[in-house]
């Protein structure tokens, strides 16, 4: 028996889809960006070096916070409560788990991933190749309901990134200074904060779960604010993904000595 759009009783057509627009563009481009980020992040977290530019005080967000005795001097802004980590284990494994978990369970990335990586479906009204589908009702995809816990973690990491950003205003000769890297870090932190606060779980937690807004006027205001951000959640998700890669690549290049940071002052 044929399934899907070919099921008995439905209008029989041999073509899978009659769409004439460029519906393949979104899954191909989004899939390419996601795969590139996964590959980049995987390679980068196993490097265990070039994450801290000591003269400029730049710490890459992929390694922040650096909490083990393996961290290079100056990069541990919150001390080193963890012992030395063997070189084959990523030093930033906690950061990676939280941030990858936050993005992996994010409602926007679910759309992006299902469409581009799992073709479920690749585009609207385009048949998917899977024979069976249970969605997020069963293991393992039911785990995606843990998104809020990763949100809590991401919120803490956003605060840590803000702290790192303030330290990036350190001048080379002491005092306050600013370089191109500082600007890049500021833009990245702004995008990360927008992405984190526009999260659907955040929207639910600040007020969305309420039935009567009128009894909670302050939470209604928070919810209204987050709802405005939430309308652009997908854009923040993709922009912040790119800014994280660019920020990390820039700091890695400065830390490795491949390029010199362009100083604006001091």
């Amino acid at each position, binding site marked *: 028996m044929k*399934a*899907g*759009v070919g*099921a008995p*009783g*439905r*209008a*029989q*057509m041999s073509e899978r*889809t*009659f*769409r*004439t*627009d460029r519906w393949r563009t979104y899954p191909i481009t989004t899939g390419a960006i996601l795969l590139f980020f996964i590959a980049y992040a995987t390679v980068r977290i196993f490097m265990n070096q070039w994450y801290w530019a000591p003269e400029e005080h730049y710490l890459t967000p992929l390694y922040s916070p650096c909490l083990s005795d393996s961290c290079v001097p100056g990069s541990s802004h919150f001390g080193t409560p963890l012992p030395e980590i063997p070189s084959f284990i990523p030093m930033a494994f906690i950061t990676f788990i939280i941030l990858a978990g936050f993005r992996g369970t994010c*409602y926007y990335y*679910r*759309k992006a991933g*299902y*469409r581009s990586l799992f073709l*479920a*479906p690749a585009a*609207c*009204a*385009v*048949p*998917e190749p*899977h024979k*069976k*589908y*249970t*969605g*997020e*009702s*069963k293991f393992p*995809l*039911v785990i995606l*309901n*843990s*998104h*809020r816990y990763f949100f809590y973690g991401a919120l803490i990491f956003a605060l840590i990134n803000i702290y790192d950003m303030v330290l990036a205003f350190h001048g080379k000769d002491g005092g306050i200074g600013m370089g191109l890297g500082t600007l890049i870090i500021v833009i990245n932190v702004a995008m990360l904060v927008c992405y984190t606060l526009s999260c*659907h*779980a955040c*929207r*639910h937690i600040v007020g*969305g*779960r*309420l*039935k*009567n*807004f*009128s009894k909670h006027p302050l939470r*209604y205001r928070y919810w209204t604010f987050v709802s405005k951000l*939430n*309308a652009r959640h997908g854009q923040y998700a993709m922009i912040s993904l790119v800014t994280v890669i660019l920020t990390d690549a820039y700091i890695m290049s400065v830390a490795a000595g491949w390029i010199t940071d362009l100083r604006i002052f001091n």
Partner: protein
Amino acid sequence: MSYKGNFKIWRGDDESGGLEDFIVEVNEGEVVLDIIHRLQATQAPDLAVRWNCKAGKCGSCSAEINGKPRLLCMTRMSVFTEDETITVTPLRTFPVVRDLVTDVSYNYQKAREIPSFAPPKNLGLGEYRMKQQDVERSQEFRKCIECFLCQDTCHVIRDHEENKENFAGPRFLMRVAELEMHPLDTEDRVREAQDEHGLGYCNITKCCTEVCPEHIKITDNALIPMKERVADRKYDPIVWLGNQLFRRGSHKR
């Protein structure tokens, strides 16, 4: 400004059918439904099509135009080029009756499965009092014209006939959300959204939002908030503990 437009229209019934080619006059300012009507008047008097208001408010003329679920009456011919062949087919998620008419009774069955609005027992008719900010979320969902384009495009049932039994579809999950968010509704609808209406099948691909002619943010404002409420109830031990300790229920929030 008139021109001869090329059309492929699906014609047939639940046993067989196929695309037939037509060349039809197209005039400035027309919509696809005008062309279908001209086709009926000049070349195919027995062509079956369901329509009513011609204003995008009755939800009757749902079909697929160049593979996209759309309303025939709200799709302007000016969005196509003159040399483009326009393919019009019936909705591919529901059984076809004839030509462009489908049997959408699945949707009415799903509508019946949702318990209706349950106001507090101590309030009579005319005694309902609500603040605007409390009802505005539900009001967005009341814009629905029940064209069932969201149901048609949802891959959960479009590509998997077997899921129709367990999945209500975006339109009716939105109806559950509408009632759940209503300040005077006393029914607890969270657990049934997951267990009875198949909310867990939704994987947030946002196709329902993409095709909605009323521009309702079905995914962001109805389905995801319902998923978060289900997470409160079923997957979040902290919220569960808080509700137990402080004896909070959803109707008291």
